[in-house]
């Protein structure tokens, strides 16, 4: 079954996505050249330490921040595009032209026309990217939705649960108040809350109830892709199970595709089909869940997996955490790290030494 799926067009395709932030004089590379596909109906896990760019990647995909370069396709339609790579290409071509035309005996006219043609093409690409980047607002919102990490902070404190849930529907152009009310009630029931909660404010709910409201808010639009940004990390263990179970049910019921961002490996292991490991803004390893846990290739993945505790005192006594020492940060060496397929479906990015 899964074999058939992989031949289909992937639901989401991310190509060389970069998200840089200007922080004063330096540029922070929050997400750097990340590419992956998410297939229809699968749960794609994204793990990595705090600050490695998982959340930023999720937010870039729903276009909360305009991306620096790269492309994001949803079912083959480009939904986000960055222009920096084209700008860089123009700058490179211009400096190359300056060097070459300076050489004795260079055919300046030919070089010049070639440069002009190249710049025109790149500018056309920039225009296209800008066009795709234009807000298509509600259309995208109905297809990709996001669950946020902190259930306290992600619900507007001055809106009732009913208002929070119906906001998306009204924005989708639904005008029939009764239909909206029916949908909201149905959704509340689905996430295990009561009708009575419609008129309640978020601060009256418990943490688990709030997160379920957050889940309901995303699911009520019936999105095809759900980006769950650490949906359980702010909850205690019993409530974590509730939320995960809810997502699992939704997935079985409506074939929901989920990008599951987490740092808790034990949750990811049982919930995800494929897992991507991020480190320092880059995707360092990507494999099926079982394969990744059985045969981690990248040293960082090994270190990460060795840090997972098990409820087994005998094992815990002998567990040794493998420390990860990233190779010295030399610009050239870092670029030399290649993205290669070590086994079928198992990708890893590392330098020869690793």
């Amino acid at each position, binding site marked *: 079954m899964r074999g058939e799926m992989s031949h289909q067009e992937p639901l989401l395709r991310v190509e060389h996505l970069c998200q840089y932030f200007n922080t004063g004089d330096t540029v922070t590379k929050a997400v750097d050249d990340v590419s992956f596909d998410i297939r229809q109906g699968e749960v794609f896990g994204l793990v990595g330490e705090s600050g490695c760019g998982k959340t930023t990647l999720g*937010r870039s995909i*729903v276009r*909360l921040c305009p991306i620096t370069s790269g492309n994001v396709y949803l079912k083959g339609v480009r939904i986000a595009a960055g222009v920096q790579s084209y700008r860089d290409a123009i700058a490179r071509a211009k400096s190359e032209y300056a060097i070459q035309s300076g050489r004795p005996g260079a055919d300046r006219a030919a070089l010049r026309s070639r440069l002009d043609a190249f710049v025109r093409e790149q500018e056309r690409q920039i225009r296209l990217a800008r066009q795709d980047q234009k807000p298509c*607002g*509600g259309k*995208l*919102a*109905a297809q990709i*939705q*996001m669950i*946020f*990490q*902190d259930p306290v*902070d*992600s*619900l*507007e*404190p*001055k*809106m009732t649960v009913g208002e929070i849930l119906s*906001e*998306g529907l009204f*924005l*989708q152009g639904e005008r029939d108040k009764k239909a909206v009310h029916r949908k909201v009630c149905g959704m509340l029931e689905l996430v*295990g*809350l*009561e009708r*009575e*909660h419609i*008129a*309640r*404010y978020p601060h*009256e*709910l418990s943490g688990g*109830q709030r997160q379920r409201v*957050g889940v309901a*808010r*995303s699911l009520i*639009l019936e999105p095809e892709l759900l980006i769950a940004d650490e949906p359980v990390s702010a909850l205690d263990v019993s409530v974590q199970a509730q939320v995960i179970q809810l997502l699992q049910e939704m997935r079985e019921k409506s074939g929901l595709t989920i990008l599951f961002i987490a740092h808790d490996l034990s949750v990811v292991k049982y919930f995800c089909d494929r897992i991507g490991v991020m480190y320092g803004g880059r995707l360092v390893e990507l494999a099926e869940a079982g394969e990744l846990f059985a045969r981690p290739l990248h040293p960082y993945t090994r270190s990460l997996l060795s840090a997972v505790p098990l409820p087994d005192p005998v094992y815990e006594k002998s567990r040794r955490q493998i420390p990860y020492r990233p190779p010295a940060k030399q610009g050239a060496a870092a670029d030399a790290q290649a993205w290669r397929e070590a086994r079928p479906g198992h990708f890893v990015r590392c330098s020869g030494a690793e």
Partner: protein
Amino acid sequence: MDINYKELGLTEEELFSRVDHNELESEKITAPRYSYWKSVFRVFFRSKVNIVILGLLLFTVLFAYIYPNVTHYDPYANLMNGAAKHLSPSKAMAYFGKSIHWILGAGASGEPTFDAIWNGSQISISLAFICGAINMTVGVLVGAVWGFSKKVDAFMMEVYNIVGNVPTILIISVMAMLFSPSFWTMVFALTVVGWIGIAYFIRTQVIIIRDREYNLASKCLGTSTFKIALRNILPFMTSIIVTLLATEIPSYISYEVFLAYIGLGMSEMSLGRLIYQAEGAMVTPGWELEFWSPVAIASIIAVVLYVAGQNLGDASDPRTHM
């Protein structure tokens, strides 16, 4: 404590039957429903001081608007009558006969001081409310846009740095020189730069709230930035805005009095103009009430407005609703 269970008419089984655990039941909230504005007024009226202050405020404002209109007050009725000027209450009543108009004596144009202060209050309160409304509306709207857009921010910061550093008194002096000093000139002078301070304050608050996760979530649903500003961010600032209003409105009254006192006031007989006129008559016998009554009423209005506004600002902060 002995309870005879038999008397309750229940059998052993009924008394100790198992209560079923109901999942939905456990999700119920026992606390009563919460309504924002109801809680605001509940907290506000909990304090006796607030009730007294609000009563005083209502009385002053209503009296200032109704009394001069009922009595058809004309400040220049006795202008040509030299004997009617600067009279103490007893002399005025002896001259004009006993009536409520003369209980505070007569002023510089022979007008009854009691009527004059209420007419002046009406003008001053109108000025304060109109200036407050204009400055708050413009300030809050501009501040919201200013806080949201980085491009606007860069531009507005420069404007603020330049305009904010010119002393307001200078701008108002120039206005008063350029235009005839009427009521609307005064409104213009007080609002032409008055909004920028409020806008800056609001901008800072917007920047604090703007990137909260629930606003990102709303953006995810496809809400436009404008709608987020209007529906999510402005309501959040109710308490801040009310508190700001509480300081702004009385400040316009004080400002008008001050400007009139230094001779930059408007031509209408506002409280400031009354004080200015009485100050010029300080050597004449009978000036005391003519001077002190507008000072007293201006102070009372300013203080009452300020206290009521501050306490309403406190009450509109949801953290006080416990």
